[in-house]
């Protein structure tokens, strides 16, 4: 009960701020918090990135291992995206198998990478129908102060850039030229998440703003401005024009993030 009252108080506080054109941390409605991206920080991974957006911190590691292709695409590599909301990152996260929040986080990030066809999966075939490279994208959340999706998506694409395929480790020498051992990345999908608080669109909601919002939208867009993934959240609906506006903001902010960090 105590906690529920706290929720109401926080919601009112955020709502009243927004109504006066303000945000808790002084940002403009369209501004991200400070972003830091560090690449290649995990030796054991083929690629990795640590992304901080304000106090939110996400570590993404990418590993490649040989494995079986899906029966319906025998000559293509496989992407497996997984998110762990480890209890270290928030008092609300509990140990255990993936729940709907971690599943959704992984699947939204995954969808952006797939939709943009950022990874050329046809280059990841080792032996048709038998063996292909499995690309494991593991999202490890370290500190949750809101907007995990944007941090995870940015970390995923940052970690994917510049990956060396570990052919030697698995005794799979590549007969052809040396650059066949680099994972080819064809696009740079970037996620931008917005929430609706009191009818206003806030970009990059922090934890309290997420809790105060009644609905939200993630828009994932590509270098050419096309959309490669979307997901609506929350217990209330969104009007058509609001969605359209969010998509426009999404394209614009993604472009900015892409130029600054990728």
């Amino acid at each position, binding site marked *: *009960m105590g906690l*529920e009252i706290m929720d109401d108080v926080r919601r009112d506080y955020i709502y009243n701020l927004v109504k006066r054109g303000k945000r808790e941390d002084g940002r403009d409605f369209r501004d991200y918090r400070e972003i830091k991206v560090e690449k290649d920080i995990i030796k054991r991974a083929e690629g990795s990135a640590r992304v901080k957006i304000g106090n939110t911190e996400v570590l993404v590691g990418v590993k490649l291992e040989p494995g079986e292709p899906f*029966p319906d*695409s025998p000559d293509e590599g496989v992407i497996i995206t997984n998110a762990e909301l480890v209890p270290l990152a928030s008092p609300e996260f509990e140990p255990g198998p*993936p*729940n*709907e929040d971690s*599943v*959704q986080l*992984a*699947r939204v990030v995954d*969808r952006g990478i*797939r*939709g*943009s*066809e950022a990874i050329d999966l046809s280059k990841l075939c080792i032996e048709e129908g038998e063996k292909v490279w499995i690309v494991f994208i593991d999202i490890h959340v370290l500190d949750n102060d809101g907007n995990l999706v944007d941090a995870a998506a940015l970390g995923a694409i940052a970690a994917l850039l510049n990956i060396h395929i570990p052919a030697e480790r698995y005794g799979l020498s590549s007969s052809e030229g040396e650059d066949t051992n680099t994972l080819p990345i064809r696009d740079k999908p970037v996620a931008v998440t917005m929430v609706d608080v009191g009818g206003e669109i806030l970009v990059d909601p922090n934890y309290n703003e997420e809790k105060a919002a009644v609905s939200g*939208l993630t828009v994932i867009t*590509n270098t050419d*401005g*096309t*959309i*490669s*993934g*979307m*997901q*609506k*959240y*929350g*217990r*209330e*609906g*969104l*009007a*058509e024009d609001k*969605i*359209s506006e969010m*998509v*426009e903001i999404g*394209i614009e902010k993604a472009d900015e993030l892409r130029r600054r960090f990728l």
Partner: protein
Amino acid sequence: MKKEGIELIKDGKRLDGRDFDELRPIKIEVGVLKRADGSCYFELGDNKVIAAVYGPREMHPRHAQDAKMAVLKYRYNMAPFSVDERKRPGPDRRSVEISKVSREALEPVIIKEFYPKTEIDVYVEILQSDAGTRTAGINAASVALADAGIPMKDLVSSVAVGKIDGEVVLDLNAVEDNYGEADMPIAMVARRNTITALQMDGRMTKEEFDKGLKLAMNACRQIYELQRTALIERYSEM
């Protein structure tokens, strides 16, 4: 993730003969189950889904109760024989996500404050699948909730649009989904123009998105009329 090599549009028609803005045939039956408090059978082309609603009923465990309102639960489940390759029973990541998105699609219309401390359970079983099961499930669930007498502000209607062979089209079937370029399921409170679910994967321009959204919203209005008619028929029988 879309595969190439199949021509999905010939002479301005889709492989199954439909126009770009044409829904597959829809069949709705209300109150098809005896044990459930409300139920609905929904066909969308070759999709066959059934939804049941139980509740409001006492929520267990107690510490999960909400003192101010009912808690809505939604379980999307595929029968093992509903797809070409047998689906292993039990939830997988896809069904966990669909359940969450579908619950949020319905939440805006349910007046949960009437029944604090209770839960309302929506169970959707996919008996046969042909792309579009999540939208068929939301449509079925919406009618089943009404059949169960759950107080609602309005019905929710749902459909997907997508892009095949470069064209924005309504309500992809399985072949179109497998070989198409994008898929975007939405749910909507048709009479209020409010979008309550929106997912998208594949690749679309902003213009295609705008066009697709309008197409979907129009189709939701059609589906809404069918849902309403089915409910009216059901209650005029009784």
